[in-house]
């Protein structure tokens, strides 16, 4: 029973009470009814605002540098504060850094907020920022994106200087990943004599089970895989924050149908993600509301030029691009829960090129195939995951059917993600699916991983499963990465998108939308964003009457 655990639901919510108690006397319900009435009479909890939320998974660790993943970033934003963060319009907003200036092309000086305390009671200073950046550079998951940073140093108590190896235009983007950790709290040795700052994927570390940040919530109870309880940090520095939630109970519910049922039955107040098949059901429910947003994760297919000779011919790749009906997939298969794409960069990114539109044209596709001498088509293999992206396996089937119209026979295999990643690493099929979100919220990231000429030495093109290689494009992206003029840089990246589009390096499908749902009294809209880390510290839950 829910009632005893939650203040908000019991205090002044007679209707909610009724909902739980009055089960109609059907065959089974009469038995249950007796049990429930007495449960409802149990003493109510104190008057505090509790948000019960269900995600599809709980954070794998309390160490925010152990893994670069959505779950860990969501945790970071609840329990820590970044130096700066993105607002809803993808603009940078000051948090623990109050201001910044470029001293020279490679140095950024940041002023830090004063009078901020960690959960442990230690005072936040520039030393913590330096310590955190050094730890990030040691983290296997973060060190790649922090590679451009040469060093960080404390100028005084509340000023920090960050030096980059080369002029680096994305330093502020990186600063959204710097969540200063309590250096004093994480220094020294734990009971077993290990350094408290150790980052490890294997075996437990001090940091994986202890947490001290500056953020709006402290972790007060955690049973991995079952529940995490967060309580409001009474000393939170951000007094401007409208947030009024005192306690958050996070439960992982991996089963889609159950997560939705938990919301509709009133067992939880907030769920994410909302499965596309249940969008209508949630939207039509009187007690729940739904918020959706165009996401930033691009879903696309590789065409492996190493494995398939015809893919080396640009006309064949273009023919494939012309044969795919992105709008049809977004409309019918995704039921509108996707935005058709013809480039990597979603709107709002520097490299988003508004001229590039999906180009479905079957006649043109056939003509290009004929020009390339493949009028009669050929056979290819295709692989896609079946539990990673929304409708991933169905999308792959639709693509296979569309390619059949230009006489390409597809041998499709879909498999669970755990197995799929290994196959992708091995480049095991001619066409393979991937979804990608740029960790830097910047277009250059797409080109570095997906279209750069593969080079195991530098790690460039790590996910270039097309074996596409265009030195001209690589040069353009490299130049953009040292261009500090925002306008010029955006033009270069948009040019890069155009090249990928013209070359049909990969086949873009869509950006997957995001969806959250909550009780009607949870003011969700202001705190959710395209990065999919809700700023729960600022969440307002209205009193129910």
């Amino acid at each position, binding site marked *: *029973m829910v009632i005893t655990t939650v203040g908000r639901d019991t205090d002044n919510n007679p209707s909610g009470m009724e*909902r739980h108690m009055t089960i109609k006397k059907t065959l089974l319900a009469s038995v*249950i009814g007796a049990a429930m009435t007495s449960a409802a009479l149990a003493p109510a909890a104190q008057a505090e605002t509790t948000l019960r939320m269900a995600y599809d998974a709980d954070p794998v660790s309390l160490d925010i540098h152990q893994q670069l993943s959505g779950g860990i970033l969501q945790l970071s934003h609840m329990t820590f504060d970044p130096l700066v963060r993105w607002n809803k319009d993808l603009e940078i907003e000051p948090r623990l850094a109050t201001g910044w200036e470029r001293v020279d092309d490679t140095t950024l000086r940041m002023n830090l907020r004063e009078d901020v305390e960690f959960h442990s009671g230690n005072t936040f200073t520039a030393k913590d920022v330096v310590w955190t950046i050094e730890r990030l550079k040691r983290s296997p998951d973060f060190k790649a994106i922090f590679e451009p940073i040469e060093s960080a140093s404390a100028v005084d108590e509340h000023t920090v200087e960050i030096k980059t190896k080369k002029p680096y235009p994305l330093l502020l983007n990186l600063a959204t990943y710097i969540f200063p950790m309590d250096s004093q709290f994480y220094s020294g040795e734990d009971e077993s004599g290990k350094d408290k700052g150790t980052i490890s*994927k294997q075996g437990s570390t001090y940091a*994986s089970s202890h947490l001290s940040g500056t953020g709006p919530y402290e972790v007060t109870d955690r049973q991995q895989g079952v529940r995490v309880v967060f309580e409001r940090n009474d000393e939170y520095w951000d007094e401007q924050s409208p947030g009024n939630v005192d306690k958050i109970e996070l439960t992982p519910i991996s089963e889609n149908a159950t997560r939705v049922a938990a919301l509709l*039955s009133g067992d939880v107040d907030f769920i994410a993600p909302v499965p596309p098949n249940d969008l209508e059901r949630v939207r039509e429910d009187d007690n729940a509301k739904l918020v959706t947003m165009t996401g930033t994760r691009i879903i696309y297919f590789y065409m492996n030029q190493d494995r398939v000779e015809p893919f080396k011919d640009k006309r064949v790749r273009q023919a494939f691009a012309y044969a795919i009906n992105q709008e049809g997939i977004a409309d019918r298969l995704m039921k509108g829960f996707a935005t058709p794409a013809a480039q990597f960069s979603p709107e709002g990114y520097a490299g988003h090129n508004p001229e590039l539109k999906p180009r479905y044209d079957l006649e043109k596709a056939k003509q290009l195939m004929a020009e390339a001498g493949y009028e009669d088509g050929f056979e290819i293999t295709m692989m896609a995951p079946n539990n990673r992206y929304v409708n991933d396996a169905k999308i792959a089937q639709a693509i296979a059917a569309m390619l059949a119209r230009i006489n390409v026979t597809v041998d499709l295999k879909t498999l669970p993600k755990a197995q799929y*990643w290994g196959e992708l690493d091995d480049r095991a099929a001619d066409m393979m699916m991937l979804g*990608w979100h740029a*960790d830097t919220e910047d277009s250059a990231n797409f080109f570095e991983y997906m279209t750069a000429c593969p080079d195991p030495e530098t790690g460039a093109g790590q996910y270039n499963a097309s074996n596409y290689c265009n030195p001209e494009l690589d040069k353009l992206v490299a130049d953009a990465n040292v261009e500090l003029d925002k306008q010029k840089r955006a033009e270069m990246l948009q040019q890069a998108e155009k090249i990928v589009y013209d070359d049909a390096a990969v086949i873009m499908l869509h950006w997957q939308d995001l969806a959250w749902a909550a009780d009607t009294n949870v003011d969700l809209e202001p705190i959710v964003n395209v990065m999919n880390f809700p700023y729960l510290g600022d969440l307002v839950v209205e009193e129910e009457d």
Partner: protein
Amino acid sequence: MIAFLIKRLFHALLVMFVISVIAFAIQDNLGDPIQQMVGQSVPESEREALREELGLNDPFLVQYLRFAVNAAHFDFGYSYVFNQPTTDVVLRHLPATLELVAATTFLIIALSVPIGVYSAIKPRAWLSRFFMGVSIVGISIPVFLTAIVLIQIFAIGVSWSPFPADTGWGAWLNDLISTEGGMPAYGRGDPVHVFGTWETNFASLEGLTYLVLPAISLASIMLPLFIRLIRAEMLEVLQSDYVKFARAKGISPRRIYFLHALKNTMLPVITVGGVQIGTLVAYTILTETVFQWPGMGLMFLDAIERSDIPLIVTYLMIVGLIFVITNTLVDLIYGLINPTVKLTGKPA
């Protein structure tokens, strides 16, 4: 007796050994755990270093021997996801599953015995026919569907209004077939701590409400089977000579049915039941997933999804052990109620 138990102990060890070899042999097909542990943009060199650190590059035999030597010291390794010894993780999830199985077993016994006996005594009564009809339906509906339907009806609620709502009788009929929900849709709520890793749902009425829907859907698979089994056995026993003799002797039907006949009916039921309890543990995987019941089944499915191989191996071995233990218990109980059976196989 002691010889029997020692034999069973070896039996258990053998089962666990075979399971561990099989689990190890298939681990390459369970996916790459590294992919689950690192972010998407982590360079290959870091992945390789981690793979080396976990010993995943070693040949099969080396990996297995390392595991076997440690396992002999009751060290089954660390879960990749939980970063804790796998035995701790499994033991933490075990009570939830055992409680669910216990509640289900109770439901099955409490319902199948009276219903089975009744429909054997009065095979032509309309109620018996109704039970038999429902049990056919019960067997053929997948647990997953049963669970989802239960959640919809009793947790979320349904409102149907096929009858005119503005008339008194119509509103009454509509109310009769509509529900307002209110039962918990998932999880265990706040179970009461007993000791160690054991937290119980049996301590309060509130805790019990969380058990109701999962236990019913889990019972829905076994209940029809047991009703039919008890009915068939009872029908057979009622035809036997000693029952006819008892009737002729004028013993009250009650005493015949519930003392003499039922006792002999239960013999095969216990054998089947013991085996089925093990199967029940396996079925908890489905039920626990739908109800997000934090037991071993849910943990196992998560472990598979995340390629947490040490945890998968440990789970399989412990479930194997549970099978052996329940079978041993069944044999012991069988010996108690049927003295003609000798466990050690020596002549009576």
